[in-house]
């Protein structure tokens, strides 16, 4: 055992003497974690908003009302321009995520609520931001429904809309007599409904109270119910916290994750990759510079040599993880939901990358090729495993492919202890996969090394 520890302590001492290697193992991952944590937090604790440029070509009360609604939306950062072309040009140049054009005639099409194609807006989204397209379409539909809601809160307005709808129905050709009759009956029923609403019960939407928009929305719905009008909307959305498991006493776990809780696991992975790469190149260096020969001539077994090398890599990955977790907890308030779960996740990650380190070392004939091969393999695994881009940004086939990447399972396991509040059952699969990859790498590497040396 002393021989194993002698080799391990020698390797760790050499890492400490290698300033560049030490930097990439310990400090580069911290920089990555903090940098992306700041970016994803919106640079100040606020959620990042979507940059939208709005061109109001209509200039009516209705269009201006829509512009105001969009500007008031906390998910949007709105800039208003007068013309279409400059707005589109901003998106084309990458200065804004999307353009919304309110065309001329928008206000007119708002009328005839109950019988019209509805008002139309133009939406253009930067092709690189396809995720935001869905969000923006949803937001615009939401604003459309909000305008419908307002109609019902103001019976006088709704009656005007109804009158315009009747007129439009009258003028429209091509509607069959049965359908026309049904629509007129519908309008009669709505008119009768609106007739019983007292005019003085004008329910202005209350401001969001101190308990926030969720509670204000609930208050509004309750008031609408009491007045006889349901808060008319096709669907209500109540937010739940999908990141926290409710504990047995009905209370949720620790505070919700910050962006740093998401980026620090990725930082740990970068540190672990740095360790694996550094030690694999060092092992290649031992072979090319002849010091491995000394180890082999010493009265120790090949397995003791491999154990010493593996122990050095493993202990250093643990040190990197502990360092980042400590910084995360002390400075960025990243508190693990379960220390035992996190510890097991980190250990399994370390063992996995020890195996990867061994395999990379054996496959590399020189330090230079080891550097290239190592970075190529690890960056590829990181790309498909969610180490660079979150998995939800990827297309379906790539998310499927990510199952072969140990990065994916490492991040999942570490997040399980850091903020997902995973239980032991949920940790079994990622840890089993990590240990299997590590064992396979170690055995394959050892086998190839013995073949090379006996050749």
């Amino acid at each position, binding site marked *: 055992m002393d021989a194993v*520890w002698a080799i391990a302590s*020698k390797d760790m001492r*050499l890492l400490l003497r290698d300033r560049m290697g030490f930097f990439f193992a310990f400090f580069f991952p911290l920089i990555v974690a903090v940098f992306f944590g700041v970016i994803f937090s919106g640079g100040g604790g606020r959620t990042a908003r979507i940059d939208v440029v709005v061109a109001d070509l209509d200039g009516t009360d209705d269009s201006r009302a829509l512009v105001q609604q969009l500007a008031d939306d906390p998910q949007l950062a709105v800039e208003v321009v007068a013309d279409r072309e400059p707005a589109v040009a901003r998106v084309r140049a990458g200065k804004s995520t999307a353009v919304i054009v309110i065309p001329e005639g928008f206000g007119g099409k708002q009328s005839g609520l109950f019988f019209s194609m509805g008002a139309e807006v133009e939406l253009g989204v930067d092709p690189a931001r396809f995720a935001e397209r869905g969000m923006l379409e949803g937001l615009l539909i939401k604003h459309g429904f909000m305008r419908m809601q307002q109609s019902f809160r103001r019976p006088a307005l709704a009656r005007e809309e109804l009158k315009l709808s009747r007129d439009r129905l009258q003028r429209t050709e091509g509607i069959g007599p049965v359908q026309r009759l049904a629509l007129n009956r519908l309008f009669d029923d709505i008119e009768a409904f609106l007739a019983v609403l007292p005019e003085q019960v004008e329910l202005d939407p209350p401001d969001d109270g101190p308990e926030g928009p969720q509670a204000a929305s609930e208050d509004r719905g309750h008031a609408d119910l009491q007045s006889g009008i349901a808060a008319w909307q096709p669907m209500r959305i109540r937010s739940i916290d999908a990141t926290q498991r409710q504990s047995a006493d009905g209370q949720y776990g620790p505070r919700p994750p910050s962006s740093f809780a998401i980026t620090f696991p990725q930082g740990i992975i970068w540190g672990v990759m740095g360790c694996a790469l550094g030690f694999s190149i060092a092992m290649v260096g031992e072979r090319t*510079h*002849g010091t491995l*020969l*000394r180890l082999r001539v*010493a*009265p120790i077994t090949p397995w003791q040599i491999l154990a010493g090398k593996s122990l050095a890599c493993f202990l250093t990955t643990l040190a990197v993880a502990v360092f980042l977790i400590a910084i995360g907890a002390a400075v960025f308030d990243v508190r693990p939901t379960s220390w035992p779960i996190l510890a097991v996740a980190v250990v399994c990650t370390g063992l996995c990358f020890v195996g990867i380190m061994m395999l990379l070392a054996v496959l590399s004939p020189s330090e230079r090729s080891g550097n290239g091969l190592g970075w190529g393999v690890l960056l590829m695994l990181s790309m498909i495993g969610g180490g660079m881009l979150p998995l939800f940004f990827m297309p379906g086939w790539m998310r499927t492919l990510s199952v072969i990447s140990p990065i994916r399972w490492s991040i999942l396991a570490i997040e399980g202890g850091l903020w997902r509040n995973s239980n032991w059952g949920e940790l079994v699969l990622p840890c089993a996969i990590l240990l299997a990859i590590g064992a396979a790498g170690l055995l394959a590497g050892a086998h190839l090394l013995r073949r090379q040396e006996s050749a």
Partner: protein
Amino acid sequence: MLRIRNIHKSYGRVKAVDGVSLHVENGEVLGLLGPNGAGKSTTISIAVGLILPDSGEVVVGGVGSPSEPAVRAMMGLAPQAVALYDDLTAAENLDCFGRLYGLDRSARRSAAASALERVGLSDRARDRVKAYSGGMKRRLNLATVLLHNPRLVLLDEPTAGVDPQSRSAIIEMVRSLRDEGRAVVYTTHYMEEAQRVCDRIEIVDHGRVIASGSPDELIGLHGGASVITIQTADSESRFETDDPVSELTLRLRDPGVMGVRIDRPDLESVFLRLTGRSLRD
């Protein structure tokens, strides 16, 4: 101390070692002399258990094969390439290697101090190896062999690329190892070194031992006659003779002798006569 019997080793169609047998006893320096690619290093690698021979036997200390870790504890190898950790100090290198041989802390310290003093590097113990000159690295390379007090020492080209001063120091150290009763195997392609330091020499070429014996025996058997060159004003004459002194005395009676040179046979001429090639080819 070391007995190698009829070992063979091939790499594909190339026979690196072809039926080599040798032995070395305590208090003796055995030289393996031959050109580059003769099979010297492969023989050494087999002797220390780094390579398994295709056939043949290696026995160390009358105990067993060098493939067993316990047997390797009796041996020390200074490889041809300087195998040291450049970013560690000399003391740290020796401490690391000492631990591999099972020495405890106090034993390592005293052994390291003794080894460094022996190779003349005591005052550079705390310097990192990358700051050493080539000669100093060679000496430290040698020091690592002595840490665990091995009975059998194998030195593979220990003076390659070394300045003359360091070379002399290394040769002196090898002699002292022999005088301490250790068995030493010394490989080199430098004929002069082999003549200076080795008690017996195995001349190796193309994986085979083509001649063996003490330097004087080899020269006497295979070196041929001495050559006397007589230079006169208008000519130069060469005469082979087994008695150069008598021949020279005779030739000096001739008038007009302006210069003489005596070329005695050496291991270079032995190798040339045995193989038709120079050692330096």
